[in-house]
């Protein structure tokens, strides 16, 4: 037997395996024919007696594999879920998005110009090894995140602090110490933390609950270095502490014996069952091996659960927008009339019900309408109007749609994205008579194309980091690295800058609204739908409440058997 063909076979292997899984994962998760029939038949009559785990002080929730557990480095929601249970910032997320609860801080004061925040810390907050948590821990931790050598991917969320951006982006080692000292966070004493902000930032309180702002244990990091957040070394200051992380199986957290409010905790132990796909997670839920299925409902089951009003399913608004963006330097999309026309020609009202099937609200604007609650007057975006769309297209010189250059919609390979793209392709053909092609690609390939501005029309989405319109609007500033449309508008940038330095909250919101109106008039991108979050919660679980940011910390749940 010669060896070369065998080597060649081995090389081909990875491609084959990948192809096999590409086909099968679709079948196993999205279109599980078996799960389809069985689900409701048993799930309907399920009672607390069916729960496999008999101890009500143990909470079983779903999770995807986190990248890491170091709160300063986490940049994805999975790690965030664990961090919100195991670390505690100055403030912490409440049971709903309307409240923030004091964490390590007892109280805070804001200076009249809105730029100096002084936090009073509680004296009884301790790390899980018994060491007290002090203001110095916060100062050190925030500076650690900003240290360019830490290379934290979410460090940008600390840039609202004076000097933070300069230190974080500094390439010169010689200047590092001075820049570090200039960062506007100072421990005045063990229990007083003073923060200087670049501009009045009304949502700063919320940010202190975000995991990147959580304290990290200096004494443990200095001992274990990069390996400090591994389960055998990790020390945290939240209600629970990670004791086990078996990759692709589970993370187990047990009560932190030194937590200042441990008497109020509903669970002694939290088990995060890790699955990569929604199929197995959903199967575990049906098998009564999970109390709470966080998002992972296979798309094929959504329609059924919605139709049958499955009582376990909770559908709540989620602070995210799904949008299409143009490359505004690429003709014909350099013409604002074309950009407007294409947006007007899509009947978005049917997408939530018939295309993505989760009851998502159509997006006429770009800021999530949930922010109305905080007093933001969401501007009315344009409604579906095929006649006006045709007129605009004719004005732009395409009275005959056949002359419109054929272009591509670029999106990453996923069933949901494909359905939306097909719907939009068909809407443009039907309502305007223009043709386009669908171009799907692997996620990383799409990202590269977007970063290189190598696309005409492309799918994207944005999930808000905090409850404020700014999280959706600063995205479109000309120099924002996440604005991939080539669109830069001085008027828009001016309004955002003005809003940023405005101390009066009402005036600030008004400036932001004006900015959004500019955006809607210029259409560098257009919203398609606003996200919803869909969870399954067993009947024996209490305490689930809608949260716009989808943050459901374990401390607000309770299991009643």
């Amino acid at each position: 037997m010669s060896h070369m063909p065998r080597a060649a076979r081995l090389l081909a292997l990875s491609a084959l395996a990948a192809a096999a899984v590409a086909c099968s994962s679709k079948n196993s998760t999205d279109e599980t024919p078996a799960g389809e029939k069985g689900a409701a038949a048993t799930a309907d009559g399920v009672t607390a007696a069916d729960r496999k785990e008999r101890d009500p002080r143990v909470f079983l929730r779903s999770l995807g594999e986190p990248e890491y557990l170091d709160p300063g480095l986490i940049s994805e929601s999975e790690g965030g879920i664990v961090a919100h249970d195991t670390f505690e910032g100055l403030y912490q997320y409440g049971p709903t998005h309307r409240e923030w609860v004091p964490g390590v801080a007892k109280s805070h004061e804001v200076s009249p110009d809105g730029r100096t925040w002084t936090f009073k810390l509680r004296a009884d907050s301790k790390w899980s090894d018994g060491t007290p948590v002090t203001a110095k821990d916060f100062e050190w931790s925030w500076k650690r995140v900003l240290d360019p050598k830490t290379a934290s991917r979410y460090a940008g969320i600390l840039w609202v602090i004076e000097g933070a951006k300069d230190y974080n982006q500094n390439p010169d080692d010689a200047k590092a110490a001075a820049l570090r000292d200039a960062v506007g966070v100072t421990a005045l004493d063990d229990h007083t933390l003073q923060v200087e902000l670049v501009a009045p930032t009304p949502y700063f309180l919320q940010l202190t609950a975000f995991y990147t702002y959580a304290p990290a244990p200096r004494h443990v990091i200095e001992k274990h270095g990069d390996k400090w957040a591994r389960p055998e070394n990790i020390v945290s200051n939240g209600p629970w502490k990670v004791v086990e992380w078996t990759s692709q199986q589970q993370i187990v957290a047990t009560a932190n014996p030194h937590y200042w409010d441990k008497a109020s905790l509903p669970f002694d132990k939290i088990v995060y069952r890790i699955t990569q796909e929604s199929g197995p997670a959903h199967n575990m839920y049906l098998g009564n091996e999970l109390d709470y299925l966080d998002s992972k409902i296979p798309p094929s089951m959504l329609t059924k659960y919605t139709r049958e009003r499955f009582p376990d399913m909770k559908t709540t608004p989620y602070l995210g927008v799904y949008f299409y963006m143009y490359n505004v330097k690429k003709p014909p999309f350099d013409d604002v009339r074309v950009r407007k026309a294409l947006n007007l020609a899509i009947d978005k009202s049917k997408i939530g019900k018939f295309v993505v099937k989760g009851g998502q609200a159509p997006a006429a604007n770009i800021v999530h309408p949930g922010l109305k609650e905080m007093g933001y007057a969401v501007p009315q975006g344009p409604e579906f109007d095929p006649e006006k769309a045709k007129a605009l297209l004719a004005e732009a010189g395409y009275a005959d749609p056949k002359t419109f250059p054929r272009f591509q919609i670029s999106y990453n390979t996923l069933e949901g994205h494909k359905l939306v793209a097909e719907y939009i392709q068909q809407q443009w053909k039907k309502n305007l008579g223009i043709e386009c092609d669908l171009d799907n690609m692997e996620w990383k390939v799409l990202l590269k194309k977007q970063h290189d501005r190598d696309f005409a029309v492309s799918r994207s989405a944005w999930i808000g980091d905090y409850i404020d319109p700014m999280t959706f609007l600063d995205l479109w500033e000309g120099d924002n690295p996440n604005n991939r449309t080539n669109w830069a508008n001085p008027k828009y940038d001016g309004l955002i800058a003005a809003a940023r330095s405005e101390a009066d909250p009402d005036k600030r919101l008004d400036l932001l609204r004006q900015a959004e109106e500019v955006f809607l008039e210029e259409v560098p991108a257009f919203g398609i739908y606003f996200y919803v979050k869909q969870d399954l919660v067993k009947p024996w679980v209490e305490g689930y409440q809608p949260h716009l940011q989808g943050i459901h910390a374990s401390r607000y749940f309770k299991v009643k058997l």
Partner: protein
Amino acid sequence: MVRFIIRRLISSVLVLFVIITASFFVMKVAPGGPFDADRKLPDEVKKNIEAKYHLDKPLWQQYGLQMKSIVLHGDFGPSMKYPDRTVNEILADGLPVSMLLGVQALIIALIIGLPAGLISGLKQNTLTDYTVMTGAMAGVSVPNFVLGPLLIWIFAIQFQWFDAANWHGLSKGLGPHIATSFLPSLTLGMYFAAYIARLTRGGMLEIIRQDYIGTARAKGLAEKVVVMRHALKGAIIPVVSYLGPAFAAMLTGSVVIEKIFNIPGLGTHFVNSAFNRDYPLVLGTIVLYSALLVLLNLVVDVLYTVLDPRVSYD
């Protein structure tokens, strides 16, 4: 024989070298990198991360560093997606799981496949034969991504006899392990059981017509002895030669099963590391799988000589 094995081992090392080299450059050609995410990193931050993993160095230098680390220390370095863990740790966690799943599936395949093939072969062209072979045909034809969910629906959700997805390994004892691993092992083993049944039947039909079987019968041996002592050994040679490739196919084919049943084996990493552009992990899984396949093929070739006196490598 020893010379043959040594020769094969040397050529295996060469094969692995070619695989590592080719994989390294192919994966670097793929667009995007491990740290490209939906939210673009500030350039300085990205530079710092890349420097940490030597991605800022020229390609040939990266290749040199990687090769040095693999050859001298057997170390693939830290994973880029899961920076708390090294690739070696991830592989060491996943390999035993995939192996255990493969071994269990193989045992199930043999327990079902061998007797089915024997009976079928001995009762050629009877109703039993047709029934068994129809079953085998179905076993080969039904894809595991249909069989898996079907078994989950029946036995994990309807009857709740087994767990839908919750691999424990042997750490929690044999009972819980069977509850979580029986369905995936069966799903994985089914195709191979069917194939083994067909091979055994074919082998049996060929052997049973051989002169020496006639001789055995003429000596007046009981039919049971003829079959078990004389015919069986010859009949299962095709099966034995199939076991190596079968086990290799189970290891690599378990990718799908591991997804359906959420098993923490190598399969998930094999696929996802490529999507994540987690270069060290991609390389690690490819090298590990290749080494296993090369080794299994060698074992099978050696086994031939033991089972079949007609084969000799000297």
